[in-house]
């Protein structure tokens, strides 16, 4: 067919239009998807991979995107570090120590000597072990040395960093010093050192060392044993697993003498903002555990008093607490019931094309924010694969289901809390609330850091008599606060205006009934008159009962509540979080819309299932699992019953907040959900559970696009803003008795760190004479200066000193430091130096003056010369003028002469 020119033109025009349309169509969705509602990605699949070497290979090959497990093998970490496709983060949750048996000096049961009954010997063990060696050689650089009960990277470490740095210097590895102390103390105990071996009552002093074998504690144990052998002890190394060791050291009586020391290990799964309050009491005094070992601790009375005051919050101000913690830090080193060895820096690997938030204590899986921030770095949407070492460990239900981290990391993705924990500081940020007011009675040390919470101190808080105080399971009524009830804290929580427009995954709308139901259930499960009574819940409830003083609903929509409590925290943000979360739908073990929990409650009332493992075992029924297994048909049957009965739980009260139609509508939503998804876990988080495959141990969660927030809401938490500190200006010498100034840059990613985001910059000036501490001053964003006053420098001895600046950010709990060396000159040298400087200055000035005078002379000479030149010129000019005058006079004379002659001629 012959194509006409017109046709060709039409074709080209059409093609151009199509291309343009394609461009437009292609562009619009891309832009629209830039920031989607809900999470960035479309889907996350979880599976199990226990072999870490294989997991690394799968990450490199793209078969997995993130590994929800920390690596313990330095060799594997090296592979991650060297891989161009992977990135990693560190968490700081695991730490090792040496636990000593404190009974003695002789064990009552055996009569054998226990050197570790002497605090001096325990303290000397700090010098005997080289923590740097352990961290670098045994742990392959995956650890930092730890000296105290406070965890590096946690807020209290930053708060007391100066004291801890001093302790770290004081107790640095010094084998000979340790040996001397131990020799003295052993001699005092009556032991003899013969041919390098300690003997007591004619027998070698043998230390029974329980060494754990499951991790690097085996190597640490071997190293410590070798050091002890070098000191002259005979060491009986007993290698044991946790199961083998715990009956001996934990439950066994230390007086039996079955062990002397043990390689202890501890884990922190969340950032603890009050370690200083509890760790001394927990690790060094009988308060810690109701077991024979702890009860055998006999701390120095002063240390016990300080630890007790911290344990019981027996202080009125933060300053008083600072003083107590500082004291406790030093006293704990003198006591050394345990010697801290290292703090593990655990790397968590992921592919570079995936970004997500991590928690400084819990890594990837422990971060509450990971579902909100996970994304591919180069695109919106997509499917992420995450593996862990376990999954679907225990039954899932929001009331008392699994609390394994291997279950919680995907359950949390389906739930949306009232407040969000900051993964880097442990403080809370508003999620479903706008702001809060916290009123605290005087004498309770509470502070506020973030501006969404307002903190006020008041002399007294009276709980209004109409505040909800409890629940009468028999009468099915809410109990109001007794007259005269007081509280230490009142929190006023302002929830988001559109809170009750939020949707659950099954399409049901969030309502006040969800909160009221949660309130009633909290009390009902602890009341023996209730069919939901659970004996195992009572101890926890009793503690809640002791501090909960009342709840008042000030406004129903928008929701504003007042919560009265006797529990205080050091941070007002924590107080507000507790008040907002106590009855929110984000239950301890997952999301709990009232209609889902009510169906579960029906099953428990019928004796078919139980929320808790304890009640399930006691009644020989299944532990309720909303996701899979034999619970599902039971729940389905109860759901049908609820629909048929138009069931409203606690109808006398809840009937005021929900109608029968609304209830049935919710049940119908749940039924449709179960029919399509095959499970009963309904939440309101950024993801919903799409598929659970218990046999294959796989879980698939999908994006909930009706989620109220866009994916970028928490974008600022993708990476911790850990400051970088560096000295930019250090004087070549510091002179005794003279001021000196140093400059420090504080940046992040090369950009200046905002001064407002810095909590403080402290400096520690260390010299052989001692240590002095001070604060740096901000100059501008990213620039700080340290001014050493004359009185500081005067006290510094001649020689080398060091200065360490510790920068503590408000945005992240990890303190960073920068160090510099200073050359200190003596006062005499300084004076001579100053005189020399002055002389040099004077000489220089004199030389300058001379030079100026010479210059002046030269200039004068020049002027002279010039003047002489001018004189010559003037003389010449004068001569010329004289000649000119003469000539002029001559001319005038001639003129007159001519005139006379002419007049004479005319006359004639």
């Amino acid at each position: 067919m012959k194509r006409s020119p017109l046709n060709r033109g039409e074709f080209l025009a059409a093609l151009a239009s199509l291309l343009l349309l394609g461009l437009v169509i292609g562009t619009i969705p891309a832009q629209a998807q830039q920031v989607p509602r809900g999470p960035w990605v479309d889907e996350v699949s979880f599976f199990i991979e226990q072999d870490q070497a294989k997991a690394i290979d799968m990450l490199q090959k793209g078969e997995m995107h993130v590994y929800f497990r920390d690596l313990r093998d330095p060799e594997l970490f090296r592979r991650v570090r060297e891989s161009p496709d992977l990135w990693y983060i560190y968490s700081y949750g695991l730490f090792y120590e040496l636990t000593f048996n404190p009974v003695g000096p002789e064990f009552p049961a055996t009569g054998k000597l226990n050197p570790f009954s002497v605090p001096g010997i325990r303290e000397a063990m700090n010098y005997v072990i080289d923590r740097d060696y352990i961290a670098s050689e045994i742990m392959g650089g995956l650890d930092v040395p730890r000296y105290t009960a406070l965890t590096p990277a946690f807020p209290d470490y930053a708060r007391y960093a100066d004291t801890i740095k001093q302790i770290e210097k004081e107790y640095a590895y010094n084998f000979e010093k340790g040996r001397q102390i131990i020799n003295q103390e052993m001699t005092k105990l009556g032991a003899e050192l013969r041919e390098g071996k300690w003997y007591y009552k004619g027998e070698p002093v043998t230390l029974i060392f329980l060494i754990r074998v499951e991790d690097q504690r085996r190597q640490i144990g071997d190293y410590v044993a070798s050091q002890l052998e070098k000191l002259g002890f005979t060491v009986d190394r007993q290698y044991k697993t946790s199961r083998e060791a715990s009956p001996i050291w934990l439950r066994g009586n230390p007086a039996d003498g079955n062990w002397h020391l043990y390689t202890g290990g501890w884990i922190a799964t969340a950032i603890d903002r009050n370690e200083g309050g509890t760790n001394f009491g927990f690790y060094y005094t009988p308060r810690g555990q109701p077991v024979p070992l702890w009860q055998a601790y006999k701390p120095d009375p002063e240390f016990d008093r300080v630890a007790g005051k911290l344990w019981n919050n027996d202080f009125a101000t933060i300053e008083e607490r600072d003083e107590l913690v500082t004291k406790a830090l030093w006293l704990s080193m003198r006591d050394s019931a345990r010697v801290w060895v290292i703090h593990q820096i655990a790397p968590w690997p992921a592919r570079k094309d995936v970004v997500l938030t991590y928690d400084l204590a819990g890594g990837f899986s422990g971060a509450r924010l990971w579902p909100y921030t996970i994304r591919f770095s180069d695109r919106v949407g997509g499917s992420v694969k995450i593996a862990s070492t376990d999954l679907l460990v225990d039954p899932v239900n929001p009331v008392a289901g699994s609390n394994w981290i291997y279950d919680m990391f995907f359950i949390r993705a389906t739930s949306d809390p009232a407040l969000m924990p900051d993964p880097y500081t442990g403080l809370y940020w508003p999620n479903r609330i706008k702001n809060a007011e916290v009123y605290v009675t005087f004498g309770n040390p509470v502070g506020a850091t973030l501006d969404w919470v307002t903190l006020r101190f008041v002399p007294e808080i009276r709980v209004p008599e109409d505040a909800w105080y409890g629940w009468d399971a028999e009468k099915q009524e809410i109990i109001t606060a007794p007259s005269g009830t007081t509280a230490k804290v009142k929190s006023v929580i302002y929830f988001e205006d559109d809170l009750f427009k939020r949707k659950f995954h099954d399409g049901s709308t969030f309502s006040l009934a969800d909160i009221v139901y949660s309130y009633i259930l909290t009390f009902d499960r602890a009341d023996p008159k209730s069919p939901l009574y659970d004996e195992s819940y009572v101890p926890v409830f009793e503690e809640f009962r002791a501090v909960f003083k009342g709840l008042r609903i000030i406004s129903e929509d928008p929701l504003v509540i007042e919560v009265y409590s006797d529990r205080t925290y050091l941070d007002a943000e924590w107080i507000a979080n507790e008040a907002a979360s106590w009855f929110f739908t984000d239950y301890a073990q997952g999301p709990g819309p009232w209609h889902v929990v009510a169906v579960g409650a029906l099953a428990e009332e019928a004796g078919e299932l139980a929320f808790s493992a304890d009640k399930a075992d006691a009644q020989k029924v299944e532990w309720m699992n909303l996701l899979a297994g034999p619970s599902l048909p039971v729940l389905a049957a109860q759901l049908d019953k609820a629909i048929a009965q138009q069931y409203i739980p606690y109808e006398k009260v809840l009937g005021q907040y929900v109608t029968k139609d609304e209830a049935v509508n919710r049940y119908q939503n749940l039924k449709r959900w179960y029919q399509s998804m095959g499970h009963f876990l309904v939440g309101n988080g950024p993801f919903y559970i799409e598929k659970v495959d218990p046999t294959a141990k796989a879980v698939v969660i999908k994006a909930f696009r009706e989620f109220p927030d866009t994916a970028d809401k928490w974008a600022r938490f993708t990476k911790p803003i850990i400051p970088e500190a560096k000295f930019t200006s250090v004087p070549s010498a510091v002179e005794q008795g003279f001021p000196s100034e140093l400059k420090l840059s504080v940046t992040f990613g090369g950009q200046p760190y905002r001064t407002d985001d810095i909590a403080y910059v402290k400096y520690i000036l260390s010299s052989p004479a001692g240590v002095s501490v001070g604060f740096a001053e901000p100059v501008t964003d990213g620039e700080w200066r340290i001014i050493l006053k004359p009185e500081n420098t005067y006290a510094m001895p001649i020689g080398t000193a060091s200065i360490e600046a510790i920068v503590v950010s408000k945005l992240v709990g990890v303190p960073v430091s920068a160090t510099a060396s200073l050359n200190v000159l003596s006062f005499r040298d300084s004076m001579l130096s100053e005189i020399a400087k002055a002389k040099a200055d004077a000489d220089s000035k004199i030389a300058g003056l001379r030079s100026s005078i010479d210059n002046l002379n030269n200039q004068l000479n020049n002027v002279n010369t010039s003047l002489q030149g001018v004189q010559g010129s003037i003389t010449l000019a004068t001569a010329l003028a004289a000649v000119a005058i003469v000539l002029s006079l001559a001319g005038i004379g001639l003129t007159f002469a001519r005139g006379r002659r002419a007049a004479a001629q005319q006359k004639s």
Partner: protein
Amino acid sequence: MQVKRIALYLARRGIVLFLTVVAAVYVTILIANMGGYVDEIIKSEVLFRVSTSVYQNPAYRGLNETALKKLVTELYENEIKRLGFDQPFFIRSFNYLADALTLNLGRALFLSSDSGSRNVRIILMERLPNTVLLFTTTQLILFFIGLFGGLYLSRKYGSRTDKIVSLLAPFSALPGWFYGLFLIIIFASVLRILPYGGMVDIPPPTDRFEYALSVLRHMILPIMSWLIAYSFFNIYTRRTFFLILSKEDVVEVAKAKGLP
């Protein structure tokens, strides 16, 4: 009379056998529980877990020492009660015996089934199909390989193939998972044609047929590793068995009669 004697004999034998079984089961219970020492291990673990969880919970930080101790003790006692450890081991050992004799598998203390149940029967039944699927398939393939390979080699005794198989028979000295490591490296990591592990693709296919295909694909490497480990030995033993059998008089007679 004769019947009575037989009945008496059977009754006597039955009682003896029953007592033997009871004794054997009870001894097993004692050994498995280390004479009750396992109680101590579990109790210490429970105490440590409970107390640490309480002390690490910031919500309990404000409690005084007495209240904290009370809370820990109550939670510990609850857990011990749940586990049934509030009774002395001696009494529980007879409960265990009764359960074992009546084949009552009961409930697991710590282990849950994949679907979350602690019923031991469910735990076992849940794992049974997969175990059967993988190991029965492997054993069936091994059986036929052994049978036909053994028959073939018994007829080719002394041949090069026979020598090679005999040489490779010690492969079974190493377990299947050892070869599995190499197979994963070759087929999953380098060639990338088979999965690294697991039972099914991630995310699992929604279509049943695709799901089944995925499961089959995931069975290839485990089965291969088992075949490598045990095929040669299997063939070798059967080949030896057939060779011995071929020297039997009956076979000689049959051969003499003209059987091929």
